[in-house]
Structure formats: C-alpha cells, structure tokens
C-alpha cells in the first residue's frame, strides 16, 4: 500500500511535466521550430550574414514574441496567488510556464543573432538565461526532491519537530540540575546555542560539525565513563538519553532543512532575476527604438 501511495505521489509530482499528454511541450517545440525556420529564412535573405537579426521582420516578430512570453511567464507569480475554478488550473499554467520558458532559449538566442557585447541588450539576454537556467534547476529539484522531503520528515510536521526539540531542551535543563558546574554548562550551551538551521551554506551543505548538542553529547559520554554509578551518574544518563534524542531529532530536522533549502534556493535567483530581467528588457526595447 505504501508503495502504491509512493507511486501515486511520484506521479502527481511529475504531472506538471506530463500535463495533458505533454500538450505544452508540443506547443513549445512547434514555436521553436517556427522561430528556427524564420531565422533560417532571414539568414538566406541576408546572404548568410549574421548581422543584426533584431533589425528584420524576424527580429521584430521574435522580439515581440519573446517579450510577451517573458511578461506572461513572470505572471505566474501573480497567478499562483489566486484560486480559480478548474479553467486554466495552476498545474496547466505551471506546465505551460516550464515548456514555453524553455522555448525562450531558442527564441531569445536566435533573436540575438548571437551578437553579444558589454551592452544593455546582452544584459537582458544574460538575465533571461540566468532565469531559465535557475528554472531548469527548479524543475529538477521539484521533480525529485518532494518525495525525499516528505520521507525525511517522517510523519511529523515542521512545528512538531521544533516543539520536540524545545520540549527536550526544557527537560534537559530540569534533568541536568544535579550535574556539576562544567557539565551543566555544556548542557546549557547545548540548549541555548544549538542552531537548527544556521547560515545559507550550512543549510545547503548540512555541515553542522560544531553543533553544541553533539559537542555536549561527546563530552558528557566520556565523562560518564569515569563516573561511578550513583545519583549523579543516574542524572547524567538521563541527560545523555535526552541529548541523544535531541541529536537524532536535529539530524532529521537538518536533513529536512537541507532538502527544503535546495527546493527553495533557485527561487532566490529565479524571482529577483525575473524582475530585473523585466527592467533590462524595458531598457533594451526603449533604447533600441530611441536610437533606431
């Protein structure tokens, strides 16, 4: 049953790619082929000179198409905020977003006529490619990671993971009372200074080598070895048990955070670059006609 569920989940994660029997993939391929044909025709008409392809019928049409597409693709950010009935479902929208966005590689590159330089036109192209490449990364992680993400969390929610950690922290502070000063300090540090997420790189690489909980756990474990059984040892055992559980929970939470970071990180390029692209696109279009 679990396997069935997993299969169903996988299908639903991929479904924006397979939506409506790849309808938008086909549309994107058709658009690309038409644009390639237009480019080839322009090239033939211009004696195979790769001059300004922007300054031709092909250039103006592909430019209008590309600019229109960019604005529409960016509108996904608005569209996703609204619920609609099933007409143009969000899934259909995302599917079209992905495939038409990919066709923009063909449209934009041929529109440029492969003429690049340190100018506002190439800036717009570079931003467009940055948005598309980060989007491709997004497609890959969205197709592969959500299953892992849900697995990594087990059956708990994010809030429960945190609650559990804070609960353990509260109990640690209680249980650690009989410990001596140095050991109590380790526990306090573990409670107060343990970071669950941490910096950007730490989240992405999941490298938490200097985790205070881990540090307290190792130090107290070795302290326990030299401690004769007694009341203090009993307290220490309890502390160790709580710390171990906290460490386990932390590991789980951090693995979850790493996956979630991967799932989100491309958006930090995709979204700002999209908005910047719209600015650069405006500059490109206006400057071309200002001095045309």
């Amino acid at each position, binding site marked *: 049953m679990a396997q069935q569920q997993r299969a169903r989940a996988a299908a639903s994660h991929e479904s924006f790619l397979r939506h409506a029997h790849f309808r938008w993939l086909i549309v994107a391929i058709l658009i690309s082929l038409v644009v390639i044909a237009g480019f080839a025709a322009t090239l033939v008409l211009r004696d195979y000179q790769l001059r*300004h392809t922007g300054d031709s019928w092909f250039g103006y049409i592909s430019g209008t198409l590309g600019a229109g597409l960019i604005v529409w693709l960016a509108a996904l950010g608005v569209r996703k905020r609204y619920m609609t009935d099933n007409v143009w479902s969000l899934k259909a929208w995302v599917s079209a977003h992905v495939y038409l966005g990919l066709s923009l590689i063909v449209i934009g590159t041929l529109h440029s006529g492969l003429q690049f330089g340190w*100018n506002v036109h190439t800036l717009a192209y570079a931003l467009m490619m940055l948005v598309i490449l980060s989007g491709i990364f997004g497609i890959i992680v969205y197709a592969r990671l959500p299953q892992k993400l849900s697995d990594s969390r087990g059956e708990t929610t994010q809030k*429960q993971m*945190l609650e559990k950690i804070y609960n353990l922290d509260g109990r640690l502070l209680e249980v650690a009372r009989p410990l001596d000063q140095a050991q109590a300090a380790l526990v306090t540090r573990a409670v107060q200074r343990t970071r669950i997420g941490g910096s950007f790189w730490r*989240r992405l690489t999941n490298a938490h080598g200097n985790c205070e909980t881990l540090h307290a756990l190792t130090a107290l474990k070795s302290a326990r070895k030299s401690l004769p059984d007694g009341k203090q040892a009993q307290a220490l055992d309890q502390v160790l048990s709580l710390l171990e559980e906290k460490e386990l929970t932390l590991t789980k939470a951090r693995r979850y955070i790493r996956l979630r970071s991967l799932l989100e990180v491309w958006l930090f390029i995709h979204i700002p670059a999209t908005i910047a692209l719209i600015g650069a696109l405006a500059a490109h279009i206006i400057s071309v006609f200002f001095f045309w």
Partner: protein
Amino acid sequence: MSFILRQITQRVGAPDIVREKALAAAEPVIGRGSDCDIQLSDLAVSLRHAVVKQTGPDQVSVDALGAENFEANNKFVHNASLELAKSPVLVFGSHVLALTQGENGDILVTATARENTAATEHASEQKHSFSLKYALFSQRQVAWIMTVLILLACLIVPISLFVIDHNRHQMISSAADRQWSGGPLSPGHHFLEEDCEACHRQAFVSVTDTACLSCHQADLNKMARANIVTQTRNLGSPFPPDPAADHAPHDRLMAAAPADPNMLRRINSWVTATFSHPNNRCASCHTEHVGIGQAETGKTPAPVTSSELKRNDCKDCHTGMSQRLTDTKIPDVSDWGHHPDFRPVITAGFDGDKPRLEKVALSSMPVEKEGLIFGHDVHLSATGGVARQAVELGNAAGYGAPLTCDNCHRRSEDGGFVPVEMKRDCGQCHSLAFTRKNGVEQLLPHGHPDQVVAALRAYFANGPRQSSGPDAFLGRPGLHGVFTPSQPVDYVAANVRGAFEPGGTCYGCHVIIPPADKRSLNYRVAPVKLTSRYLPWGDFNHNVPEHHQDANGAANCETCHKAKSSTKAEEVMLPKIAECGTCHGKTKEQTQAAAGSDCAECHGFHNTGLAASPRNQQLARSALIRIQ
C-alpha cells in the same frame, strides 16, 4: 488479565477529570489514530506509535510500530521490556503513561496529558526558520533593488544625458552611450563610437541621410569640403570622409526601381516607411554596429566589408529600365551577356578653344578631332626614320630601340595613364631648342604661339644668324637652317614664319591657323585635347597584370589597341566589348585567364564617374552587386 486505561485530564483551577475503562484488546496499540486502543490526541504521537504486550506475570514489552522512538524510563528507545513492579513510565509526546499492577492481575495504564505551552509557543514562533529566506535575503527586496538600478543606469541616465546636452557630460556619457551600442562600429567610423548623436540625431527616428551627408556629401565647393575635412578631423577621424555621390537623383532612383512583384516585400516597404524606418536610406544598405571594434590601421581607409553592406542587384533596376524611366539615356542591361558595346566620350571638335565632347557608339567608326596630326604607325614601326632616331638617342635617353607604347604612355598608379606631355614624351626627337646660349639649349615655349613669335623675333632682331658657332640656329627635322633671302626682305619676319609654315617646327604636328593679314605674324595653333578617359562611367584598370601583359609577361597593348596600323590620330583605338568577353564571364575550363562578370568589376555605385583607383575599385567591388 487485561489492560485498564485510566485517563486523567488536568484542569487549571479545577479538580482533574479521571476516566477509567477496560481495554478489549489483549495487546493495546498506542497512537493518535482513532483505531488505537489508547488514543493520545497529540500530533507528536504517530498514528500507530507502539504496541504493549504482556510478556510475563509482572512484565510487559512495548514495541514501536513505526520509525518514531518513544521514551521509557527517561530513555528514548525503540522497544522496551518493563517490570511492572518498578512502576515504569512511558512518554509519548506530551502524554505520560504510568504502568502499574492493578487488581486481579490487571495492568493499570494511567495516562496524563502534560502541557508544555512554552515549547509550543516557541515552536510556532520559530517554525518559519525552516525557510531559506531567514538565512539569505528577501527576494522581493533584491528584485526591486536590481530592477531600479538597471532602469536607472541603463535607461534613465542615458536618456537624461541625451535630453540635457551630452557634450557637457562626456565622461559619464561615453559609458552611458556605450551600453546601448549593439556592437562596435566599422573601422572608418570607430572615432564616433562614443558619439551616438553624430548619427542618431533625434530620439525614436532612424538615422537619416542628412546625418550621413553631413560628412559624406559629394560635389562640394573647395571651402565646404575643407570645412568638412576639418570638422571630421576634429572629431578624431584619421581620414577625410569619402564623398558619396548619389547613384542618381533620389526621385529617379525611385522611379527606376520596378514595383516589387513580391507582395511581402511591398508590405515591408510600406511598414518600414510608415514607422519612420524607410528602406531607401543610406543606412538601409550601409549596416553599422557590426564592426570589429578597431580603429583604422592602414594608410588608406579600409574598404567596406560585406557584413557592413546590404548588396542589391543592379539588374533589378537596369532590366527594362527604359520603360519606367522613359527619358533615360542609359541602355537596358540585364546581365553581362547583354551589355551593349562601348560608347566612348570623344572630342568631336571644338567650339572656339573649348573641346566639344560627344558620346558615340564605337560601332559607328567614330572620328575623333583632337587637333593633333599624328600617326601611331610611323612611330611604332620597327624600321624607318623614327626607329633609327630612337636607336640613336640611346639607352641613356630612355630609348636605344624602336619605340614601344610605353615610351610615350606611362601607366599611373590609379590604373590610368599619365597625360602625354610634349616636352617630356615627344621632345627628345621633336626638340623645341632653337639656339644655344653659353652652351645651354634655348627652347621655344610650347603651347604659346605668341611667345614663340616673340622669342624668334628677339633672336633674329640683331641681324642674320649663322647655322654654326656658339649660338648657332639649330636645325630641326623639317627645318632647313637659317633662311637666307635672295632679295632684300623682312629678314626677321621671314624666319619667324618659317617655324609655322610647311616644313617648320610646329607644322608637322599642329594645324596652323595663319594670320588673315599676310604681313602679320599673328599665327595661331588649332586647339588640341587629348582624351584621357574614354569610358568615364566605367573603370578599366591598366595595372591589372592581365590587362597589360600576356602570359609570358610581354606587353599586349596591341591586343586591344591596333596602334601599329593606325595612320591617323582621328582613329579611336578602343576595343569592342567582345574583347573583354574573351576573359570576363568565361569559365576556367574555357580559358586560363577567366575573370568575373560582376557589374562591380567595372562600375562603382556611388562614384561611377571618378577616376579609376585601386581604392575606388575596392569600394566599387564591395558596393556593387552581383549579376548571378
């Protein structure tokens, strides 16, 4: 023996509620799910978290059903074996289950909910910390900052500078300008790289011909031309601008062009014209911003490259042009095979001293009236007086052998010829010296009959001269020495007349117009105009090796110009166009010397009438049009 569940709900400020029931299941399941025997309403507990089994009279085991651990006696374990006598305590999330031995051997499970509101609150506050944005930056902020910066730097600043007067802000402006440039300019225009407004004069209006012609205007007077040269030099141009004449007046060009049969191209023309981007501007053919980003490096401007020029097809207009441009004198030429024969411009005569130039068909055997009496055959003959004299003049004088064409006709660098000059090219034989003074020859001033008369009068004024001695009168071809009269006459006048009358110095080559009054010495010479360019609308380069020598390197002038059999200067010794066709338009299989049949081989677009020069030819070649 069974399990009895006692659930205690703690209430603040009120007694606890205690519910007790016997569990039906022999092995009760602990979990959040409704199918569990011991239901714990806490999300931290799994749906089916663990199962409790009695394993002995005083012993139970608890086994986790899923991956989640549970706490047993302060330890987190996956399964535990517990002695009831020790009052074990299990913790699932916020629920504490105490196991004790009940009556009748039953096992009493006391479940107490433990509230940890602090942790719950803390967790709700912190739950967003899973999101990356708390470790990175706000997407919205960065998006806005980048967009505003781009719009400011790439749009608002350049436009503002254009509006305010860009020259005052050269420093910022050049950087602001460059970022709009779609590509580097051609080498010739490299110096304008940071001066967009030199060509782009108005916002949202395409580059107009006025902008181009402000430097490249042809047919200017000297003053205006000098101004333009200075102006472009001040802008940094390494060369004076090439004057670009119109191929024809603009309205005639438009009239000559046939209506495009292609509907799409007709629509194209209409649209481009409507959107102030007409396709009959200079910039419609001359593409800019496709250069290599380098300034001119050579001594002459680099020719226009093919990527900098949109090539048109001559035959588009020149096929059937006479029907569209009914008053044109230019014959229709659809291709090289249909090129009419040459119609050279010759000197047909003189109106007073002014030559009358006429364009005549070569097939009409034109007679040219250059005003000179000259026979090429006599001069080029391998035998006879001319040849003998040339041999006698010797190598040191530049002769030493019977005459060849290049003894008189010297090729110039521009592919034409240095004009023939009497003193230099004829004077070695047809000497103008008439006496020696202190051993130095005194020459009659050529081209000025009145001065000739004056010089001879002065010479003979002092009485008769000898034909020998230090200042003897020199005998020349056709002259018979000093005229010695048999009866008393005007001695001076008789000697002056001798130079102009039959047998005199001038007589052999020039048509002499004697004075109406026989006593006058007012002799005149009919005007002479040697044609230097018969085909001014084409460009024949004599310096092309195949054009002046044969396969063995010997001069081949005779192939085209039948000079050895030409008895009179009146004959126009131009070849028929068929002569060109022996190489041009032929394939390599047909002849080793096969050459192109492109119109541009001979005709420039802008400066068809300019003297031939290698540069013009290069320009013409790139500016023109393929026939194929």
